[in-house]
């Protein structure tokens, strides 16, 4: 089962922030692959959603970037800033809390 893009949309920022917190610095393609690998292909982040989010995080100064030349092309690595680290904790806690609420609201019995 692949989750719908609506479900991913609201949590993408949190996913990206958490991945960066666990992996120091990452580039776009690496992030999509990592998510695929960790979720067993259940969550596939599209390019169309990932890059706008990365740019927004950069504008919010939650991440910093480093450019690296690979032959003729430039690879942009993303890394959490100090405020990004705080924000990650905040976002992960918020999502955890949200999931508990959803469980209660939708009356989901966990095994």
């Amino acid at each position, binding site marked *: 089962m692949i989750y719908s893009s609506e479900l991913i949309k609201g949590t993408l920022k949190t996913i990206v922030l958490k991945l960066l917190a666990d992996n120091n610095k990452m580039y*776009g393609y690496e992030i999509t692959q990592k998510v695929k690998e960790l979720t067993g292909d259940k969550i596939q982040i599209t390019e*169309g959603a990932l*890059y*706008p989010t990365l*740019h*927004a995080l950069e*504008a919010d100064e939650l991440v910093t970037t480093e450019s690296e030349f690979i032959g*003729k092309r430039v690879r*942009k690595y993303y890394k959490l800033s100090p405020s990004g680290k705080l924000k990650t904790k905040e976002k992960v806690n918020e999502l955890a809390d949200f999931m508990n609420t959803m469980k209660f609201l939708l009356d989901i019995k966990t095994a």
Partner: protein
Amino acid sequence: MYHISDTQIDFILNDISARGVEMESLQQNLLDHICCIIENKLEDNGDFEAFYRQTITTFYKEHLWEIEEETIRLLIFKNYYTMKKTMIYSGAATTALLLFGIFFKFMHWPGASAMLVLGIFIACFIFLPLAFTLRIKEKQNTRDKVVIGIGIFSSILLSLHVLFKVQHWPFANVLGIISLIILMALFLPAYFFSGIRQEETKINTIISSVLMVIGCGLILILMRSPYNVRSQNIRYTAHFLRNEYLIDGMLKKAIAMNDTSAALSMAQQKQSAIFTVCKSLKQDILEGVCGVSQFDASFESKEDLITDGSIKDVFENNARVEEKLKQLAQLMDEYQSFRKDAALPIDSKKILDLKDDRANNALATLSQIQMMLLQK
């Protein structure tokens, strides 16, 4: 692993940009991303172009530039909040500064004009431009955007007009007239006719339009018409000239009566010094404010008119003139120590306040001092 050549990289980059992605950092991101996919998925001897064409289509629903559009939307959304916050804070600051400024001005407390100037500046250069930027984002059609643009522009001009007016800066009236013309002849009709067409904005449009007409009307009532100003100035000038004739007459009489060979007493010496300083100050004021130092009966046809403009600049721009004023105050003190019985029409301590006065008033005061002296 497929090896991508430099020409292929150029090809991809050109294609991304041809597909409408213009932001450089986004171009680089997408380029690297596609290269990674190709390197990982394409066989060594695979068909680069076919694989690329197929891969790039998985990036979007209809067009590649949707990614850039989404990026810009997110970035603007971020600025949107900061802008809105700044607008609210600057609006609050303007309101507070104007309210306190007006109150202080009424009470004649210090700091009033600093507050008013700052308040109007914030309104003109932070609040109103931000209000403009945020409002046009909400509007869809160009017509509404233009209407808001004209409205905000004329409000800025009108606020600056008031600021220039109270600060006695040049071109205040020009600003006022231009802003009122734009407001009444351009903005109001455009606003009225675009708003009245839609049922939901009809009533609000009518009310706001009427309020605007009332507001502009009140400002215009307060403004003096050029005709009025001219006839007022003619009266000031005629008044000044009559005083000059009186002084001349009195002076001739005094000279005829005095024995010129006798030495002048100390009081008389002071008297004559005061008289000379007054005369010279009057000339400085006339030159500074009206541009001429001599008036005659044909002043009206020559348009040599005395105004009620502030004479502050005459003193601020010329230390010598200011010095004369101080000298006058001192001479008046000395004169009164010789002639305790002779009251002058103005207290010497208040003489220095003359530099904040209006031209017509200051001239009248100086003439009165001369006349009083001639009566002794």
